[in-house]
């Protein structure tokens, strides 16, 4: 019963991390292949994506998002295949790290840049959902 419930949660993790992966991939590809985002008075995304906060170690921060979501996605896929409990432990801890990054990015958007990029906020949403799913896994496991 408990195993089954975990299965459902992990499938949700799989879906959410996949959506986060698609979103972060879009932003990363845009950074490398797209136009130079213009400076604009109407849209907030350009301000966010061209700001100095959009790069870390010379790479677009969205790329770190790609790796994070991909890692969570693959861990979930591994769990569904092998049913190793240790993976669940990872799936409950990793999103805490992701959520801390999310808090930082949302703070930058709201209080430093005063602009909101919807794509970044979507990533914040999926990261928060992963945190909740991680908590649910933790409660089921009780380790």
């Amino acid at each position: 019963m408990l195993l089954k419930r975990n299965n459902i949660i992990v499938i949700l993790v799989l879906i959410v991390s996949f959506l986060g992966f698609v979103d972060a991939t879009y932003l990363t590809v845009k950074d490398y292949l797209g136009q130079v985002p213009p400076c604009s008075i109407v849209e907030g995304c350009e301000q966010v994506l061209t700001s100095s906060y959009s790069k870390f170690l010379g790479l677009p921060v969205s790329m770190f998002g790609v790796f994070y979501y991909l890692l969570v996605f693959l861990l979930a896929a591994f769990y569904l295949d092998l049913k190793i409990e240790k993976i669940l432990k990872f799936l409950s801890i990793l999103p805490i790290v992701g959520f801390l990054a999310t808090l930082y990015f949302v703070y930058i958007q709201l209080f430093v840049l005063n602009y909101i990029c919807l794509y970044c906020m979507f990533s914040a949403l999926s990261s928060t959902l992963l945190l909740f799913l991680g908590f649910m896994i933790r409660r089921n496991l009780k380790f």
Partner: protein
Amino acid sequence: MTELNNKELYELKKEEKNKDKKVGDIKKASKRLFWWLFVTVIIIAAVWSMVKVVANNAPVGEKGIQKLSVEDMKILPGDWVKGDINSNIVLIEYSDLQCPACGAYYPFMKQLTTEFGDKIAFVYRHFPLKQLHKHAEAAARAAEAAGKQGKFWEMHDILFERQQMWSAKLTVKATFSEYAKELGLDVDKFEKDADSLEIRGKVENNFLSGERNKVNSTPSFFLNGTKLQNPRGYEEFKEVINNAIKEE
């Protein structure tokens, strides 16, 4: 006899069980194979489709529907023009000297003006986004003031090349005066001009012409009055210009 039969029966059953197990193993293995195949395909499909989406977002040099008004698409008195001022092909740029995207296009523009300078008129108009860039308007005035002494483009170049440096400063007046000195300008006159009503009015007029024509981002390029989707690199920009020359 019966004993042997029993043994045989036992063996037979065991063999059948093994067979079942084997079938089960194959089923399990193929299930796993399908699962990982699915995972791989879905990841590749996601990346591939995002690349497609981004690539299709801005078709090469596709012309938009946004147009400059008939008066504003011509070269206006007071406009800064490079290249062939009498050309039928006019590329107008609405730009903000503090905007990083304009800074990114600056080398392209410079290369285009040397490559197509004999065929096209390149027009620069100020569109300082004051809400975003606190020094943008002062920079526009500095370029205009240098223009009063015949060095508009020289100041424009310095301002773009050192954009990151002065953008970060709290005040820029002294910095701009230093640039003026570097260019061999009369600094007193430069400072007076940069602050003059005339130049303030000119920059404001440029801005208003952009606003009239619904410019809301920089850089905005208009080729013979029609807004361009910003090209993604120098080669693309060149292609757009070459097409315009061919059409001519």
